[in-house]
């Protein structure tokens, strides 16, 4: 066999965060993994992205032609929504529904009495830029009143005259029949071709007019932002990398080509934490724990995600800021506790930790030019639990300044606490916050967290997470290799994914199997075509059917997977059985045999399967791990504690706490009463030795 030129072998994941851009490269041939970090460039994130790629190629000694593909996680859409000024957005609705955004769901956020002092936020589109057009469908998609061409034309001209740049269309029951919305699109193209346009029947063909309207508006709002960004990326990449497959992370836990993303940019709206969840799922499975809760503690907040049976949970009732976005996204709860969370005294004199944060600027007190209030990071430093220098050892941290800040705070509190006692208390409070959030999240989903392991990554997590594991009584704490780069790693462990759905309400007794088959086949064709456009060979395409089903008369659906094969009576029986089972699991009961069901949404997800990176086994090296020692505060006193370099720990190594494991960008603390073992892949696994208390 003739030797062919060496095929491109490096798959590169680039995860752009607010402060750092993390890069991971996997060598498909050897399985070797390489990681690095560069500073993010918020003014034009494409520059940081390119620098990151260059840095990892340099480190690997590889040229651009060695790159097999790029996968990118970006928060451009999220940031546009959370920070961008929303101007120049228009909405077209059915006559009679002009106030749809003002009324919303009449909901006041939780907290009794809020209806008196809560102020409804400005709507995403001011009423003056909402236009009604004539024509009405019923829920079967039948026309009750014909489409009013003139009102649509008048709306288009109105928006052109006003210079409104992005317009969403949401007509009643458009999910059942897109004809009217498509006609609006044609008229817009004639009258105002420059406007960005999104149709609700394409973005979210699902019943519930308010949520569909907002989702469509968010989509059209982020379109120009995403378009600009991807064009910049294209410019920056240069000719050698421009031709490589470039995939973008979506909120649903899959990737898609930049071109697909531009069709429905909303699919990236909450993709930030998704890659971390997927990376966690890979690590947890390798470590032998298919059920885990993940903690991603950053500077200002912590993301929590539940992974059951190796799969991160999905939700379609998420939100970005105040905007409900009903597209499938990885189910993540965010709490306002992170490494930079400030310890402060509330108005009534009580000690609080977060949600105020020193963030990256000014940062904790111990940082060079740091803030003036002690943070969780300062507390960890004073207790000796984190090293006295920043990432990589370059910048020294000022422990004395942190200690002085804690002392000053302690002086304002009762109990004559020492700075160390206060530091310990601050961390305790943060741990209980995380514990309570995990409990709430698991209870909402009917899960007992004690059967789960905890997986901690992100810069500010592993120094405390083994205490959280103990507070809840979880199975173990898992710390992946390179915990600061898990999201970038996750980007490489992700399949292509495209979700397609349509609402069609059918009572169990009146299901038209032919119509249902037509719907499924239509969605399957759409999904397959989308993946084909991204160049996925048919052999690697997998189509998964799902359906949203509810008991007749209720308004809460459960998404269940539907059988493949012919859509016949057997299919239906399988689907209904799956619904009863899912209802039992989700809500603790079902009405199997007692109550009829309704099919609500028909869904198909298309997956383009990738070659997953294998986690390489840790090489055995000779010699014992080296330990330095320093005093670390546990259970009321400093105790001389061994400090290990993680890179020196061999597979299979075990040690009893207390111990501290340091590495680039993260520190893991093993508390007294806990034991640590290093698994064959270098994953740290911490368990309780006996039924012990926290530190």
């Amino acid at each position: 066999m003739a030797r062919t030129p060496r095929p491109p072998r490096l798959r590169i994941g680039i995860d752009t965060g607010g402060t750092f851009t993390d890069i991971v490269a996997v060598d498909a041939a050897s399985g070797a993994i390489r990681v690095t970090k560069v500073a993010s460039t918020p003014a034009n994130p494409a520059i940081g992205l390119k620098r990151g790629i260059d840095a990892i190629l340099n480190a690997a000694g590889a040229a651009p032609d060695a790159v097999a593909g790029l996968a990118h996680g970006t928060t451009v859409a999220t940031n546009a929504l959370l920070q961008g000024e929303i101007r120049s957005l228009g909405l077209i609705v059915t006559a009679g529904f002009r106030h749809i955004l003002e009324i919303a769901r009449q909901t006041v956020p939780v907290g009794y009495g809020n209806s008196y002092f809560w102020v409804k936020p400005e709507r995403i589109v001011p009423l003056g830029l909402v236009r009604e057009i004539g024509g009405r469908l019923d829920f079967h998609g039948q026309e009750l009143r014909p489409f009013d061409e003139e009102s649509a034309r008048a709306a288009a001209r109105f928006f052109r005259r006003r210079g409104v740049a992005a317009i969403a269309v949401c007509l009643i029951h458009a999910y059942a029949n897109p004809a009217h919305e498509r006609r609006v699109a044609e008229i817009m193209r004639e009258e105002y071709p420059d406007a960005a346009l999104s149709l609700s029947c394409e973005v979210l063909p699902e019943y519930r007019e308010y949520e569909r309207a907002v989702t469509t508006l968010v989509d059209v709002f982020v379109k120009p932002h995403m378009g600009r960004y991807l064009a910049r990326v294209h410019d920056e990449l240069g000719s050698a990398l421009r031709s490589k497959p470039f995939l973008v992370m979506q909120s649903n836990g899959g990737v898609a080509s930049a071109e697909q993303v531009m069709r429905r940019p909303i699919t990236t709206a909450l993709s930030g934490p998704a890659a971390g969840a997927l990376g966690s799922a890979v690590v947890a499975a390798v470590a032998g724990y298919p059920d885990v809760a993940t903690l991603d503690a950053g500077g200002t907040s912590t993301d929590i995600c539940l992974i059951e049976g190796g799969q991160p949970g999905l939700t379609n009732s998420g939100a970005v800021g105040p905007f409900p976005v009903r597209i499938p996204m990885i189910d993540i709860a965010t709490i306002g506790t992170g490494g930079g969370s400030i310890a402060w005294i509330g108005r009534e004199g009580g000690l609080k930790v977060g949600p105020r944060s020193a963030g990256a600027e000014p940062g904790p007190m111990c940082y060079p030019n740091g803030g003036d209030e002690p943070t969780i990071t300062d507390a960890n430093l004073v207790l000796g639990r984190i090293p006295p220098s920043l990432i990589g050892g370059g910048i020294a941290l000022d422990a004395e300044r942190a200690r002085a800040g804690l002392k000053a705070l302690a002086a304002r509190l009762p109990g004559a606490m020492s700075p160390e006692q206060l530091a310990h208390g601050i961390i305790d409070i943060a741990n209980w916050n995380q514990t309570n959030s995990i409990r709430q999240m698991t209870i909402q989903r009917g899960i007992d967290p004690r059967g789960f392991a905890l997986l901690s990554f992100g810069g500010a997590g592993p120094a405390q997470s083994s205490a959280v594991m103990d507070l809840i009584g979880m199975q173990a704490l898992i710390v992946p290799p390179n915990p600061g780069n898990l999201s970038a790693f996750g980007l490489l462990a992700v399949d292509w994914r495209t979700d397609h759905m349509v609402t069609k309400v059918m009572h169990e007794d009146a299901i038209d199997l032919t119509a249902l088959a037509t719907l499924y086949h239509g969605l399957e064709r759409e999904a397959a075509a989308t993946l084909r456009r991204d160049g996925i060979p048919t052999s690697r395409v997998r189509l998964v059917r799902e359906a949203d089903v509810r008991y007749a008369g209720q308004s809460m659906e459960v998404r269940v997977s539907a059988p493949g094969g012919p859509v016949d009576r057997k299919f239906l029986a399988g689907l209904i059985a799956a619904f009863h089972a899912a209802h039992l699991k989700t809500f603790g009961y079902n009405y199997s045999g007692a109550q009829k069901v309704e099919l609500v949404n028909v869904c198909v997800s298309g997956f383009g399967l990738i070659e997953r990176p294998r986690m390489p086994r840790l090489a055995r090296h000779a010699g014992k791990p080296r330990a330095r020692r320093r005093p670390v505060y546990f259970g009321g006193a400093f105790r001389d504690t061994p400090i290990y370099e993680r890179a020196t720990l061999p597979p299979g190594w075990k040690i009893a706490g207390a111990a501290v494991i340091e590495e680039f960008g993260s520190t893991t603390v093993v508390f007294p009463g806990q034991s640590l073992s290093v698994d064959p892949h270098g994953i740290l696994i911490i368990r309780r030795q006996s039924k012990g208390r926290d530190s």
Partner: protein
Amino acid sequence: MNRFERLSRTRTKRRPAGRSRPAVDPIVLQIVEGTLNSIEAEIEYAIERTARSPMIREAHDYRVGLFDRHCRKLTGRSYSAMPNAVVRDFPPATMRPGDVFLMNDTYLTEGSIGHLPDLCSTVPVFHRGDVVAYIQAFGHHDDIGGRVPGSMPGTARSVFEEGLAVPPVKLYSAGVRNDAVFSIVTRNTRVPEMLAADVDSEVQACLMGARRMAELFDRFGQAAVEACFQAIIEKCRDVFRHELLPKIADGEYAWEDYVEHDGVSAPRLHKLALKMIKRRDRIVLDFTGTDPQSPGPINWPADYADGAFLIKWIAPILRNLADTPERAAEIHVNEGVCEVFEVKFPPKGTLITPRWPAATNARSFVLLRALGLLAGVVAQAVEGRMPADQETIRYTGFFGLDSTGKPFLSREVLGGGSGGRYYADGNDAIHIVPDSRNQPAEFTETRFPLLVENLALRTDSGGAGRRRGGLGYDKHYRALVDCRTIVTADRVRLGCYGIAGGRAGAPFRVSIVGDSATRELDGLVDGAPVKAGEIVRVMTTGGGGWGDPLEREPALVLRDVTDGKVSAEAARTEYGVVLIQTDDGRAIDDGKTTALRAELRAHRGALPMIDRGPGYAAMMEQTKKVRWTG
């Protein structure tokens, strides 16, 4: 006084004895407080996940409470019931782990349960063999028997029409279920399976909460945890004493407000009277002068447990006195407020001191009015620095047979506009119960033979003011079959009041629009016929306005007109703003606006602190007549 009433008069001790107590560790305090809030949320999530009644799952009508062993409420996410009646009938020394108590009797629960569908579970928490706390939950269940489905007969004249009344009973004894209680309860409802499952869901959630609470005691010890409870209660008390009360000058302030009908007698105003006596760090609420109890279902047995339930229900309105709305949202209200307020009830036999067996199922009218009543009294004491009035709960619906002959019943809780505040306009179309949701038109049309022709805000319904009242709904349902419509609504004659020169919002209206004529309906309708093709038009209340409408920035008035919230006519008559048509919409005519405002100012009298709307004078007349003739 019958035996039950006498029983329920016995008081439970609410305050712990002794002065000395351990110092509170600020770390443990923060952990205990955070965990109590989390336990409350966890119980709510568990109920939401496993309960079945739509009122619980979709309208979020259920409440959880955590209490210390003195029956003092510890958490402030929402109002809740009280365990006092359970402790009264079952001394804590006799309680055992695994006991669960059930009750719903509006009188024998000491007024902590307001209508019978709210079955309430109570679970004691144990530490080293002693009761140290209580966990409680009740939900609005779909039916507990009585004369009509849903157990809320708008024309009830006694509790015997309203359903099954359960005094405090032991549902579980040391973990063993009392099947007799269960079978009596389930035999007395139209939806036995759903009710049994709901109660089961609430019981299990409370037991879970009790385990979580016991863990706190195990970890930190009883003395430390109870010191935290005390500190949490005192914090609330001190916020009221030192932060909110100083905003009110010492003195006496009196006012009255009205429920506008009771379902069984001729429409008249049913008066709730309140005199607030403010002295330094204490407030006395004297309800003397409140009208006699009604023969209909609008009575509220509030005169138990020193009025603790009433205080915890209405005192939170004082949070509006906080420096900023953001600060108001931070203030949690627990039993600590009961040390700041004292209630003087009128003698037995009034709307808030009814005698058993007066009906109570529509007591929400009185409950909501009591909130607005205190807000109105306070407003007069602080020169109007309180929000104007709102009324954001009512039920509307349809029933009949659909085109295939199957029966259908649709019930919807539609909100309204909230009142203007000194810092913002009122909110449009909101509901007082947090997280409650309306029905999407695309759901309504799929489920019921109805077509939603218009889902809009009701133009001009918000009371005029410098800060306008929020708008109510103008929702049009076209009936696709012959059917009937139901309405349970108050504020149908008087508008939600305006404050500090602001005008009252528009009252609730519902009408049936036919081909030839429009029929107006009243606020309590048990099934008015609607023909296929006719439109039922529901217009809900706008909030009251705040401040002088002539001081509203003309640019805001222009925006309201552009948005369809205010008509051009009202811009001129209410706000004195003259608009002119331009090429691209409307613009303000500055000169004419200044002139018109000057003219309007010159021709009006002094602005009242509170405006009740044009319906008030007519209703006072009507009320006098009805009282006179009997």
